[in-house]
């Protein structure tokens, strides 16, 4: 019985601690995928976020920023649950959330039910989040999956000479958006996408997928991430796969390139496109990489920040700079902060970022190729830098709207 009462007291103190409210503090809730398939991505996202705090500090005028982190598992329901917990229990005023595509769509919809709060997207990249019925209090400082593929299709067609490709991707909104960007450009240049395979997020056994890969294609595009990507590579190597590969933005990323084992070596020479390139010479990027490396011991981080770290860094930076601009003034339903967030132009590590009228980032994209640094570590080497990529990918908005929303079969492989 003693045990029971001790438990009750512990529980009671827990309940009480949730109610304590700080005064001169601005509370910000952060979510990341610290569970499930995308755990590694979430952890590096948090590292990017902490790097931003180390670089910029937590002070806004005379107020101090306080952060509460909640965990999700890349499913929309876990994101909504985490965000609700942060708002209702921890009383956060601003959200830095979420990480993954479908989470983004769900959180954006949730944001509409709390119009007084401010939501800064942390890293999610589904097109629908800001393109369809955007929430006025939801700001996204990273590009979407389609923007992150700009340049890849043309490079594959013109420079690499690929004419026919097949795709394998995770069956959800972010990868649809990535394949959308790739297919538009590759088919627009004259290429063919003969086969699109979709696997559920969290797939462990890729045997049937690998067996169904067509032989008569020049390259296979992989839109996988986290544990799924590593599992695929291991099994692909065991199956003796030798095709040319192309990669999506979270496939050719330090979360995969730094994985253990040598399955990742299948990726050497793979071309990809993303919102960053590990070996970019730009001083701003190099400074960020240095700050990231200095913030964590080598065994607790990747050799170079992943796309998620960069996104979390950029989002945190936007939020802190905007808060400083309004001197932490959150009165009148945070109107001033929202205004500042919409107008801010970021000098982010991965290039200049500004927002369009849907509060979606217009930024810089990178076409890369995977190289071995000679010591067994893999990096993405920059091949081409494309500035000012907007959400309609340079298409006229009316034409872009006709293409339809990214899905398993959209866009068709043709020139729009």
């Amino acid at each position, binding site marked *: *019985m003693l045990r*029971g009462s001790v438990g009750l007291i512990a*529980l009671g103190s*827990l*309940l009480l*601690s*949730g*109610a304590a409210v700080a005064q001169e503090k601005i509370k910000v809730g952060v979510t990341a995928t*610290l*569970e499930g398939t995308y*755990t590694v991505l979430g*952890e590096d996202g948090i590292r990017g976020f902490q790097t931003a705090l180390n670089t910029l500090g937590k002070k806004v005028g005379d107020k101090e920023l306080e952060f509460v*982190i*909640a*965990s999700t*598992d890349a*499913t*929309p*329901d*876990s994101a*909504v*649950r985490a965000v*609700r*917990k942060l708002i*209702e*229990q921890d009383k956060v005023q601003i959200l830095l959330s979420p990480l993954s595509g*479908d989470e983004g*769509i*769900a959180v954006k*919809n*949730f944001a*509409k*039910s709390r119009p007084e709060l401010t939501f800064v997207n942390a890293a999610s990249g589904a097109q629908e989040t800001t393109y369809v*019925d955007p929430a006025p209090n939801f700001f996204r400082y990273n590009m979407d999956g389609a923007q992150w593929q700009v340049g890849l299709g043309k490079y594959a067609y013109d420079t690499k000479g690929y004419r026919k490709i097949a795709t394998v991707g995770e*069956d*959800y*909104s972010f990868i649809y958006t990535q394949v959308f960007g790739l297919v538009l450009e590759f088919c627009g240049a004259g290429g063919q996408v003969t086969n699109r395979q*979709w696997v*559920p*997020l969290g797939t462990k056994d890729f045997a049937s997928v690998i067996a169904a890969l067509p032989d008569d294609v020049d390259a296979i595009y992989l839109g996988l991430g986290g544990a799924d990507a590593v599992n695929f590579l291991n099994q692909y190597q065991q199956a003796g796969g030798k095709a040319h590969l192309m990669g999506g933005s979270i496939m050719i990323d330090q979360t995969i390139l730094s994985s253990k084992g040598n399955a990742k070596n299948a990726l050497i020479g793979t071309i990809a496109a993303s919102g960053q390139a590990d070996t970019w010479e730009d001083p701003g990027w190099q400074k960020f990489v240095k700050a990231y490396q200095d913030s964590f011991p080598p065994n607790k981080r990747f050799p170079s920040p992943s796309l998620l770290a960069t996104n979390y860094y950029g989002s945190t930076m936007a939020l802190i700079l905007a808060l400083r601009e309004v001197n932490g003034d959150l009165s009148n339903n945070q109107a001033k902060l929202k205004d500042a967030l919409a107008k801010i132009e970021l000098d982010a590590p991965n290039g200049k970022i500004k927002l369009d009228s849907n509060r979606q980032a217009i930024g810089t994209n990178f076409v890369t190729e995977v190289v071995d640094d000679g010591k067994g570590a893999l990096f993405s080497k920059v091949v081409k830098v494309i500035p000012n990529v907007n959400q309609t990918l340079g298409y006229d908005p009316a034409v872009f709207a006709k293409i339809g929303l990214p*899905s*398993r079969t959209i866009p068709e492989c043709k020139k729009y």
Partner: protein
Amino acid sequence: MSLTQLHAPATVVERPKFPAWPELNNPAAWLVALILVIMPLIANGFFLIEIFGTSLILGIIALSLMFLAGYGGMVSLMQLTIAGFAGYMVAVFGVSGNANISLGWPWWLATPMALVLATIFGTLGGALAVRTEGIYTIMITLAIGAAFYYFTNQNWAIFNGHTGINTVATPQFWGVDWRSDIPFYYLILAVAALCYFAVQYVARAPFGLALQGVRDNSRRMAALGFNVNAHRVAAYAFASFIAGLGGVLQVWNYRQISPGSVGVERCIDILIIAVVGGITRPVGPFIGALIFVILRTFALDVLIKFGLDGNRFRLLIGLGFLAIVFWSSDGVIGLWERWRRRQTRTSSSTAGRRHG
């Protein structure tokens, strides 16, 4: 299990006139009921819905499992799937942000439709499962749960795939927004109470007693002329309806449903809730759900507060469950009962008191 075995004949012999409600004579039950009713005065929005509301909803779903496992001896892992099916049907027939999928029926049409379909779904699943026993029942119901999860994850025409259905409309009538915190809490409480007493009643009704007979010795019951499988399928139908009610509340709670809500691990969560709470009594699942929700919500904060790596919070959850199951194989209810028994042994004045 032994408790109900002892108890069932006792009820019949001692109180043959009508099925009694032992809660009415138990001051602790009245106290709990009172606290639940005045909860909105005590708890703020977060505790009201996120902790107590969610616990009651999960408790309702786990109650349907408790009914099947405790009285019918059938451990069904598809109760959450049935709840999720009801939730999906509310989203599909009702109003949501995905206008190309949702049919836009008003809530008073969509909700009964969802409940009917969920009951049919659960009954059909049950009809499959009753052909098996023991571990095979667990396996076949788990298979139904897993199949449903993968189906929703990959079907875009009805279930909208991994994205799920967002911004599901919630009922508003009599000038009340039934999803605002306090009305919604009372709605959940009313449904939970209804389900609780329904299970209590059915367990003591002839059908429930026959079901317990089927659980204890199905051959003998068959020899006595009972249709064993019909009783089991009927139990599934009843449990499916309860699970469906929980599912409807669940989708109103989050206003959103996606495959993650019906994943296999969620199905197992329901089993954990029922086992931790105890499957010998209808109140067990609600206690289990409260413990589960508290652990799930606060484990991360506790670890960080003690300066530990927050990423290991699942470990804390696991340890909590391990501790409960280690000290009491029949859940928290079992702990309580053992404590009561020790009390009666030490204080002779209350000798021979029975409850349950």
